[in-house]
């Protein structure tokens, strides 16, 4: 387990290096002079030069990158152009809101996705199986923003059961969490279905049945457990995608998360906030993938022994 762990950790480092480099270069890839961009449209030539010097934009790129990483590691991303407050203070509360919403959504997705995947695999070629297939195809075909607006229209506007938007009570979590989880429910359900069908034809399942074990125990103890590995991988990936997907859901429901802040900051050209948000989301994704690998290293000792 330990060698496996250290190999995976070592693989994550160059990726994080690449991500930080990409995020750093963003501001230099934007067409035009970054100093002029930051100084604003009505800045004088002297203002632009002051900004250039103050932000170190007149130094060579490698030195700028080293300074960027050094500051980022201490949580210093500069100040927001829009509010003037430190970027970290702007993004951390938003990040917490996004993570909570993402965690709830992934829990819903795992629960419903696994249940429907197991039932549709066990009851193969029945109405339930076909319905699950069609529903999951519909689930991945649904634009998140439209699903969100539709749920809002039905449950908030017409029925008046749930609040329209914002984040004040636990009732506010319901519609965004369902919206965010739908595509993941569909994907987890399909993976569970395919994986379980494969496992059900294994010798050990036949043996378990042959020794007269109850079918429910065969499915639960022998089959589902062994079918879980691909599901764990996909669930981990989905948690990461939900962080990215939250951008849309948060915009629909005016959820005060990092995704919504990111979109607002792009439209306002508030680059320090954009850089920090992107770096934080990508780093989280890399860490989640690392944890996913570790979990299935625990589930299947053969993987970590390699």
């Amino acid at each position: 387990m330990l060698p496996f762990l250290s190999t995976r950790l070592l693989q994550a480092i160059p990726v994080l290096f690449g991500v930080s480099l990409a995020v750093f270069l963003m501001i230099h890839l934007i067409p035009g002079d970054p100093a002029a961009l930051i100084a604003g449209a009505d800045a004088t030539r002297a203002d632009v030069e002051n900004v250039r010097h103050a932000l170190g934009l007149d130094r060579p790129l490698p030195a700028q990158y080293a300074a960027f990483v050094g500051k980022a590691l201490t949580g210093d991303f500069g100040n927001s152009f829009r509010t003037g407050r430190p970027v970290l203070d702007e993004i951390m509360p938003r990040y917490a809101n996004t993570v909570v919403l993402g965690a709830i959504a992934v829990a819903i997705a795992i629960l419903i996705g696994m249940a429907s995947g197991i039932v549709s695999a066990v009851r193969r070629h029945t109405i339930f199986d076909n319905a699950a297939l069609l529903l999951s195809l519909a689930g991945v075909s649904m634009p998140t923003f439209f699903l969100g607006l539709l749920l809002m229209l039905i449950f908030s506007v017409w029925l008046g059961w749930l609040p329209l938007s914002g984040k004040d009570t636990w009732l506010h979590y319901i519609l965004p969490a369902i919206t965010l989880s739908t595509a993941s429910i569909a994907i987890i359900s399909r993976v569970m279905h395919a994986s379980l069908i494969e496992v059900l034809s294994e010798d050990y399942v036949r043996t378990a049945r042959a020794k007269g074990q109850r079918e429910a125990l065969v499915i639960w103890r022998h089959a589902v457990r062994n079918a879980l590995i691909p599901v764990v991988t996909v669930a981990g990936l989905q948690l990461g995608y939900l962080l990215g997907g939250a951008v849309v859901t948060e915009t629909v429901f005016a959820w005060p998360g990092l995704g919504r802040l990111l979109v607002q900051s792009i439209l306002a050209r508030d680059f320090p906030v954009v850089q920090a948000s992107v770096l934080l989301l990508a780093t989280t994704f890399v860490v989640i993938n690392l944890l996913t690998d570790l979990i299935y290293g625990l589930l299947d000792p053969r993987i970590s022994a390699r």
Partner: protein
Amino acid sequence: MSTFVASHGPTSTALRQLRRSRLALPGLVIVLVFVFGGVFAPLIAPYDPYKNDLMNVLMPPSAEHWFGTDELGRDLLSRVIYGARISLVEGLFSVALAMVIGVPIGIVSGYVGGRTDAVIMRTIDVLLAFPGVLLAIVIISILGPGLTNAIIAVAIYTVPIFARLARGATLTVKDEPYVEAARAAGLSGVRILWRHIFPNISATLFVMMTLRVAISILTAASLSFLGLGAQAPLPEWGAMLANSRNAMLIAPHVALFPGAATILLVFGLNLFQDGLRQVLDPKLQDR
């Protein structure tokens, strides 16, 4: 069944199975209806999709305006039909661009191997470290919002997927006897890649292409909804939904029709893709 199939060429076998697959054909029909609508939009659309009629805003569906009118009195049916054209362009162009860049990278990476492969794959890992649409959003924040930039952003977001797929597929065929024979015959590397490897991985790529067109249409529509893609007054479905958000509360049809159009087109593509995959990927056949 196997003896029956064996008497036919691979193409006619595939077509036969496609016909038998219960999902692929309805999917293809749905997609073709949208393609037809998109291509012949100027002939089919009853009104000019950009013409405001401020005397008739937010009218519910009627005999005159089958889908009603939007917040500026524009005919919604005409806008949805023109929207099909924009969405198909977004999906096809971004995926084509992604394939033109990603597939050669993946094939070369898989075929050459060694340090080249390692460097390319680590770069791809970095691109894949931006979860979901985040990579597309990063690119938009560099290029600025707009329809063309959204297509480029979605293309770059899709490049790693094709590079990885092409690399994996190349690895499985590169030691096949026919590739070795081509190498032994002294064919140049480029010729081997183009004439012997590419045709043999094209089925895999084609299945992925239909899936990615569906995903790219959704991604581009999402970007437009966020204000980062196609901008008003373009009748792009995502942008239409964003612009009619407030009107939606009193006149739901302004959101329902473009939303339903998006679902139907993407659903059709997904149905077709699912059937296609079963036909072209024999391993999946008894699932």
